[in-house]
């Protein structure tokens, strides 16, 4: 298999879907002529031109709403938020028009849009630019949310998202864009990963580390330390998709290990991890040997300081420490 970067895996997904379906159109700020603020759409404007790859003004509510309206006529806009953090200026379009039009019309309207962009901390860009709104959007029925951790997942889930007939919000990660990983060659056929399917990124028997996005990499680091220094064999469950959610995989893993630590870059209050903890205590109540524990971003707006931000986020050290409280 080829090793390619996460950003290139996404780029390939766009390129293939642009070729497959003439209704697919990429839009967002600087996605065309500038090649994307993070170069995720590199080369696509050159190749596909003005109609298929569109630069927008800094008007998130305007262009996202426009994409939603166009999607009702069968266009499939794949819209970039330069940072997912900028959801705040387009929230109405994202949670009302995208999530509710189908419902309010009694199913007469479809909104096959994809919203995408990076949603992560860790790059010292401060409180307004470091939101991780997976749980925030997954809370709205009508929306789907996923968060790929590897290049292969990024490509496979992005392609699935574009073909999905409901709004799918894909949360990428600036700290992952440069990561390399195996991605099947397009010559070997269409590569799709379904939404709603978790992936066991590491098998283990003593404790389940459940996470998504970049936190998966922190879990894998922590699992190595737990294995080598504490003789604890951790399983790492990558949710990949937040909604739909692979509850079966979560419960199965916890029933095996009897212990769970949830790792989640959201803030702790009502974060994704709160939802997962609630499900585990409900569906694996009799299997739990200890409370479900969480490692979240420390509960404050994102700090700028590069000296401290790494400690505000979930990291291997904090995960190991939390595992040891229940191991």
């Amino acid at each position: 298999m080829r090793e390619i970067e996460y950003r290139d895996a996404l780029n390939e997904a766009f390129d293939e879907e642009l070729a497959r379906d003439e209704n697919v159109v990429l839009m967002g700020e600087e996605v065309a002529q500038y090649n994307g603020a993070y170069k995720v759409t590199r080369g696509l404007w050159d190749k596909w031109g003005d109609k298929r790859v569109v630069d927008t003004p800094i008007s998130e509510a305007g262009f996202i709403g426009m994409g939603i309206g166009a999607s009702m006529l069968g266009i499939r806009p794949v819209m970039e938020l330069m940072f997912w953090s900028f959801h705040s200026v387009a929230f109405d379009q994202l949670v009302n028009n995208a999530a509710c039009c189908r419902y309010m019309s009694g199913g007469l309207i479809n909104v096959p849009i994809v919203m995408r962009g990076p949603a992560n901390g860790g790059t010292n860009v401060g409180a307004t630019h470091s939101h991780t709104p997976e749980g925030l959007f997954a809370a709205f029925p009508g929306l789907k949310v996923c968060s790929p951790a590897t290049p292969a997942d990024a490509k496979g889930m992005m392609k699935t998202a574009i073909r999905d007939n409901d709004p799918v919000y894909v949360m990428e990660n600036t700290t992952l864009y440069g990561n390399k990983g195996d991605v099947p060659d397009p010559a070997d056929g269409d590569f799709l990963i379904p939404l709603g399917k978790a992936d066991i990124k590491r098998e283990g028997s003593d404790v389940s580390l459940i996470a998504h996005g970049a936190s998966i990499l922190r879990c894998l680091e922590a699992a190595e330390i737990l294995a080598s220094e504490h003789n604890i064999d951790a399983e790492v469950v990558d949710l990949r998709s937040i909604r739909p959610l692979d509850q079966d995989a979560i419960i199965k893993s916890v029933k095996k290990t009897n212990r769970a630590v949830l790792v989640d870059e959201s803030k702790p209050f009502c974060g994704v991890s709160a939802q997962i903890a609630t499900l585990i205590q409900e569906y694996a109540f009799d299997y739990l040997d200890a409370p479900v524990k969480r490692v979240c971003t420390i509960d404050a707006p994102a700090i700028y300081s590069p000296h401290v931000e790494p400690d505000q986020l979930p990291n291997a050290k904090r995960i190991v420490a939390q595992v040891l409280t229940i191991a």
Partner: protein
Amino acid sequence: MRGLFLSDLGQNAAAALVLRPLAEAAMSAPEKSFVMETANSPNHSPLNFAGSPINKTLSAEEKLETFRQMVRIRRFEQAALKNYQKDGTMGGFLHLYIGQESVAVGAASLMGDHDHMITAYRCHAHALAVGMNMNECMAELYGKATGCSKGKGGSMHFFAPDKNFWGGHGIVAGQTPLGLGLGYGLKYRGLEGCALCFLGDGAINQGAFHESLNIAALFGIPVVYVIENNGYSMGTSQKRSSAYKDCLAQRSEAYDMDWDVVNGEDFYEVRAKTHIAMERARKEHKPTILEVMTYRYYGHSVADANHKKYRSPEEIADYKKNHDPINLWRSKLIEEGVLTEESSKTIDTEAKLEATASTKFAEESPAPTIEDITNDVYWETDNNTEASQIGRHFFND
């Protein structure tokens, strides 16, 4: 200012006479000369738009049909109001359009296969004007499974995509980027058509509308924004909610966009000016703001008990008596010999009967069930696709 409007079309309309260069420049040659003539008619007496080409093409039957639509809309809403007040079975809000009928009907009468319409919560008229039937609309108000939105949308959320009608939207100005998107979709697909996006005079101060205007002008999107200026946003008069120079439509100049002001009580004028804007959109991919001066007789919604406080009873009475769009259209059609007092009565009686029948239909229709609550959320689960089988989509304990 509203007072002025009563007597001589008002400041906004006067402004339109003076400040219309962009609109004129964009007109096709015959339309242009037509308007130029009338605009020059002495002392600003009401213009006669009957001679506008798009109105000249109207057959007698078509004229009757628009009249019938306006009457049906009014009778439907009067029935809805009665039903609402009868007992508590109808819920939520009820925003009546009564007094504004010429606007939705005038615009809808111009729509071709590739023209689309979208509006706010005051949407019954637009729904009926595009051809939705009273039964599905009344049943929706009753929250019945036979309603146009299966009882899920209610009064504010009527939809008929098969009739190019995209709602019915409750968040003020939230529909304005969607309207932009409809135009974008048309242009993307290479279809010659336009999006008609309605909003209120209070809605123009929402950020999403302004973002839409900039994109519409910048990208050349075939969209016509129709401000239905009924003078008030809830209890707030135009003057208390908006800063502007001569009129609201003129805000389009900030984006180098065309605009016009329309006297909504004149059905011919609504059609003539809307047609110009639609053609500009269809043929030149240029957006327009139209500001239609109109009036609602009832409160903001049925819950608005104050509406005789923020507007004087005289003001309301004057509109009903002297500016009612249905009355004026009826007089005009009688004058033209298209309609008689008698046929007018027949149309009215039929509309009343239709509204009564729709009430019966609604009352007798089944309500949605608890199971229905989680339908129509995702296309995938509704259609039981393979994708919908993977992972948990709903989280009810």
